[in-house]
């Protein structure tokens, strides 16, 4: 049994919220650089260069990459041999978010109630996905998610007979409809299988994967590369103003499902695909 104090969790979540909003992971930076080289549209190329410059300014001036600093999504993989000391884990995560969004000059974008819409003024609460895992570590991933691309995300309850072609249509339809609204070039997270909520959670998790990390399942790997190619043939391009770099990656997760189900969730993320992972 290992003891982890909530103070350590608060400090780490705070720092991760700030880090995620000022800097992107290396793979995202590399993907944008590669995009500049292959983009066919002159205006698209210019926009991708602006996005690269934007990343340099954000890091240098400690200013958020995007003003929509997101709803804080946290994946917490908690080892079953860990004992949390110092109070509630959920409270600690929310306290970390609170401190990070205030200290980091991040925008407070959360409203207390979806209808009454009063701002909570500290960007809490976070949306937290817990998983109990073997071992005595806690792995935390903070992924602040903006609303422009979130609002264009979809869930499809397909029929098993729709098969892989139905999945392909669902992915392409989602990206085509999103167009400029999702701030392309995007990262496309897909969850196939499970049930209604499981596929949505997988799609979100898929966005936190390394861009160049392929699925270990052969047909899924093929689907990822085929979808990336097809999406980039849609013509949407950077900022939706025409071009050949519409997506930087398609990441797909799968899970067993019911004999009558084929759920598919497509979670779009803009080019500011933020995620920071730490293991405590």
């Amino acid at each position: 049994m290992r003891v982890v104090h909530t103070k350590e969790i608060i400090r780490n979540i705070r720092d991760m919220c700030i880090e995620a909003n000022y800097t992107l992971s290396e793979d995202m930076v590399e993907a944008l650089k590669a995009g500049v080289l292959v983009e066919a549209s002159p205006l698209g190329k210019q926009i991708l260069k602006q996005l690269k410059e934007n990343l340099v300014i954000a890091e240098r001036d400690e200013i958020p990459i995007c003003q929509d600093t997101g709803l804080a999504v946290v994946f917490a993989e908690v080892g079953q041999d860990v004992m949390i000391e110092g109070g509630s884990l959920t409270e600690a995560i929310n306290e970390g978010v609170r401190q990070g969004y205030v200290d980091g000059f991040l925008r407070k974008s959360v409203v207390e109630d979806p209808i009454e819409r009063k701002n909570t003024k500290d960007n809490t609460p976070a949306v937290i996905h817990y998983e109990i895992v073997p071992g005595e570590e806690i792995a935390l991933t903070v992924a602040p998610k903006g609303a422009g691309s979130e609002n264009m995300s979809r869930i499809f309850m397909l029929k098993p007979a729709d098969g892989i072609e139905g999945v392909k249509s669902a992915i392409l339809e989602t990206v085509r409809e999103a167009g400029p609204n999702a701030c392309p070039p995007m990262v496309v997270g897909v969850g196939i299988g499970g049930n209604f909520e499981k596929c949505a959670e997988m799609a979100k998790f898929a966005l936190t994967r390394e861009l160049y990390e392929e699925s270990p399942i052969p047909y899924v790997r093929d689907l990822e590369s085929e979808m990336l190619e097809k999406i980039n043939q849609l013509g949407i391009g950077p900022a939706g103003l025409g071009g050949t770099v519409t997506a930087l990656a398609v990441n797909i997760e799968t899970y067993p499902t019911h004999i009558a189900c084929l759920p598919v969730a497509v979670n779009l993320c803009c080019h500011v695909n933020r995620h920071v992972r730490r293991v405590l």
Partner: protein
Amino acid sequence: MNQTLTMPLTKEAAAGLTAGDYVTISGVIYTARDAAHKRMIETLEAGGELPIPMEGTVLYYMGPSPARNGRPIGSAGPTTASRMDRYAPKLMELGLAGMIAKGKRNQEVQDAIVKNGAVYFAAVGGAGALLSQRIKKAEVVAYEDLGAEAIRKLLVEDFPVIVVIDSKGNNLYETAVKEYQSQ
């Protein structure tokens, strides 16, 4: 074509813009997004007056992140325009000359742009750090209680935008995508 525009935006200047033009804007513009639009329209419906001028005004659909000490504003990129679609035609009737945001507009807004000789510009979504450097002054002038959604008066210099929907009804989102479509 590259163009430079000085605010306020006249009807003549708006008429000279074509979808696809790369434009830099200088002068005073105002921010407003969801909650501010809702309140402005409710004010009009109740017979009240708007807190900012509309004639020749360009509205920037944007809610910034907080400013660090010594800086006028935080990160300041555009938000998605379609959420303001239900309010925009009414404001164009009152003289609103242009909108800066990102993403598609519905048919009613496109029709109102043509009818009123207005223009819809896109700023690059997600480039909030870069765009903030072109904002020289920012001041909350109405609805302070709305926080990031309050109406701000901005003084901008060479603020980069692209004409998406012009006063003739051309729509760059539709034409440019067709050009690069290969399936």
